[in-house]
C-alpha cells in the first residue's frame, strides 16, 4: 500500500521532449513507472522512449487514460501546464518546475481548490512509492519498500533522509516532496492525513526547514489528529536570519519561523526531532 501513486498509476509527462523531461522520463520508466505518454505542443504524433507524444493534455488523456501527470516545463509555461492538466481532469499533478512567481501560484491555488485535482509542488522533487512508481526526480535506488511514510518541504534533503533510512534497512511506503515555495498545492497536513489513513504506513518522517509556519501547523495537527508516530528534522539551525525588510512579514507570521520555534512546537506535540538527518533512523522503532 502507499499514498497518491502506485504501480497502477497511469502517468503523463508534460514537457516530455525537453532535456530534463526526457532524462527523468527515462529514469521513471526504468524504475517501472507506468508512463503512458507525453505532451509537447507542436510535437503531437511523434514517439519518444517508446511513448506517444500529444499536442494537448486533453488529447493525451483521451488516448491514454492517464490519471496523473508530471510537469517538467520551464517556469514561464508551468502555470499554463497546471491549468491544462486541471482542465483535462488529471487527478494527480506533480509540478517539478521551480521559479514560478508567488502571485501566479496564489491564483493557481484558488482554481485548484475548486477542482478535483491534487497538485504536488511546484519546486519539488515529486513523489516515490518504492518498487512501484516514481513521479518526479527522486533518485529511485536510494529508496526501498517498507512502512515509513516520508514528507518533506525540501528536495535533496529528502533524498538524504530516504537514503539514510534505506541504509539502515527501513523501507518507505511513499516519499513525498511537497516543495519549498511559499504557496504550493499540497501541504504537510494533507500528506500527514493521507499517511494516517494509509494502513501500510506505520510511522512517518517529516522534514521541515526554517521560514513560514507550516511545521507549527503540522505539529498542532499531529497532536490533535494523528495516532501514528512522527519523527522530524528541521534544517536551518545555523542559517543566518533572513534579510527581511519591513514589518509586514513579522506581523503576519509573528515571531515564528525559526528552527527553535518549529522544534519546540514539534516536541510539544510529542514528535521526536532528530539532530541531523542521519539520526532519523535511530528515532524510529
Amino acid at each position: 500500500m502507499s499514498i497518491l501513486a502506485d504501480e497502477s498509476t497511469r502517468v503523463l509527462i508534460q514537457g516530455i521532449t525537453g532535456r530534463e523531461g526526457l532524462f527523468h522520463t527515462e529514469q521513471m520508466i526504468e524504475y517501472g513507472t507506468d508512463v503512458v505518454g507525453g505532451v509537447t505542443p507542436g510535437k503531437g504524433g511523434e514517439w519518444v522512449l517508446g511513448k506517444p507524444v500529444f499536442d494537448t493534455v486533453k488529447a493525451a488523456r483521451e488516448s491514454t487514460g492517464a490519471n496523473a501527470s508530471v510537469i517538467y516545463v520551464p517556469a514561464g509555461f508551468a502555470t499554463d501546464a497546471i491549468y491544462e492538466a486541471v482542465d483535462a481532469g488529471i487527478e494527480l499533478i506533480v509540478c517539478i518546475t521551480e521559479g514560478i512567481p508567488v502571485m501566479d501560484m496564489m491564483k493557481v491555488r484558488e482554481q485548484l481548490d475548486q477542482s478535483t485535482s491534487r497538485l504536488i509542488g511546484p519546486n519539488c522533487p515529486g513523489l516515490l512509492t518504492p518498487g512501484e512508481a516514481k513521479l518526479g526526480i527522486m533518485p529511485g535506488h536510494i529508496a526501498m519498500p517498507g512502512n515509513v511514510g516520508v514528507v518533506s518541504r525540501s528536495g535533496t534533503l529528502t533524498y538524504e533522509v530516504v537514503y539514510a533510512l534505506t541504509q539502515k534497512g527501513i523501507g518507505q511506503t511513499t516519499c513525498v516532496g511537497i516543495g519549498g515555495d511559499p504557496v504550493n498545492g499540497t501541504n504537510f497536513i494533507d500528506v500527514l492525513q493521507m499517511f494516517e489513513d494509509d494502513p501500510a504506513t506505520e510511522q512517518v518522517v517529516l522534514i521541515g526547514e526554517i521560514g513560514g509556519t507550516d511545521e507549527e501547523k503540522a505539529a498542532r495537527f499531529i497532536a490533535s489528529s494523528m495516532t501514528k508516530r512522527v519523527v522530524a528534522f528541521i534544517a536551518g539551525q545555523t542559517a543566518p536570519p533572513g534579510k527581511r525588510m519591513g514589518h509586514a512579514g513579522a506581523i503576519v507570521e509573528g515571531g515564528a519561523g525559526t528552527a527553535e520555534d518549529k522544534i519546540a512546537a514539534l516536541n510539544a506535540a510529542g514528535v521526536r526531532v532528530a539532530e541531523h538527518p542521519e539520526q532519523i533512523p535511530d528515532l524510529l522503532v
Partner: protein
Amino acid sequence: MNLHEYQSKLRFAEYGIPIPKGRVARDPQEAYEIAKELGGPVVVKAQVLTGGRGKAGGVKLARTPEEAQQRADEILGMNIKDHKVLKVLIDPASEIRAEIYLGVTNDRAARKPLIMASAEGGMDIEEVNRVSPEKIIREHIDPFLGLRDYQIRNLAYGIELPRELWKQFMQIARGLYRAYSESDATLAEINPLIIDGSGNLLAVDGKMSIDDNALFRQPQLAEMRDTSAEPTAETEARAAGLSYVKLDGEIGCMVNGAGLAMATMDMTKLFGGSPANFLDIGGGAKADKVAAALRIILVDPNVKAVLFNIFGGITRCDEVALGIIEALDEVKTGLPMVVRLVGTNEEEGRRIIDEANIPNMVGAATLADAARKAVEAARNVQG
C-alpha cells in the same frame, strides 16, 4: 530582491501616492545642494537594504543645508548591519500629527495577499502587533478580484481615520495594492503614512520587496538592483545563478538544494565546526556553475576547508565532478576538500573524482562522515 526606500517611494509615486519631494545624494556636497534647493529643515536618511537603520543612527534631522552636509558626511560610509551606506535620501522634514501603518504582503498561510493598517504606525508596529493585535486591521485580498474599495473602507473605519481623509486614503491604498501587484512584490509598505502639518496624508517612508521568481517579467525593477553595497561574492554568485550568503565560519560549503545546504551547515556545527557560507548550486547545475561556485568559496580568506555535498536528483553527480575538476584547473588551492556525491550518476561522478587523483581531496560516504572530515581538516589547517 529588496528596493531602497527612495526606489520604493518613487515607485509608489507612480501610483499616485503622495511622497516628500526629496532626492538622493551620494556625497555631502550633493546633500548640501539638495537641502538648499528644498529649503527648510530636512531629514538625512541612510539608504541601506536592511532594517534598524534608525536605531543605528542612520536617520538624522538637519535644520540648515550646512547641517545637512555634515549629517550626510557622518552617515555616508557608515556600516549598518554589514551594509555600507553609499547613498542618503534628503527629504523635507514634515510635521507629524499622526503615524499610520499601511502594508501589503503575501500571507503564505492564507495563500492570499493581505493588506494591513494601524493607527499606531511607526517603528514600534511589531510591538503593537504583539501587545494589541486588534489594533492592526487586516483584510485578505482575493488575487483575482484585487483590493476592493469596500476593503479599504473597512481599514479606514477600523483605524478610525478622520472622515475627511478617507478619500486620500482610498487613493493611497488603491495605489499601494496596484504597486504591489503590478510589481510582483512580496511586500509594499508605508510606515509611517503620516498626517502632516497641513492635515494631509504623506508617505514618508516606504519599502518594497520584489519576488525574485518574477523578475524575468519585471525588467524595469530588475535593473533597480543595487549591487554597490553588497559583497562582491553575492553579486557574482547571482550572476552565475547561485544562491550564496557569506557567514563567519571556516568550512566552505557547496551543496545542491537549500534544505540540504542548511542541513549540511547545521552538521558542521554539530561536529564542532562552523560554516563559512550558505551556497546552493540549485537543481541541474552544470560544470561551469560548479566552477563559479568553487571560485566564490575560495575567495573568502576565512575558508580553511571545503565541503562538497551533492545529492543527485536533477543534478547529476558526474557533471558536478567535472565542474570540480575544471574549477581546480583554474583556481589552484591547497586547502583540504571533502567530496560526497550520492544519487543520480553517483558512480560515474566518483570515478571522475578518483581518476583526477587530487592530493588534497578526500571522499566521504555519509553526510556525518563528510562533515566530520571537513571539520577535522579545517582544524588541522588552523593548527
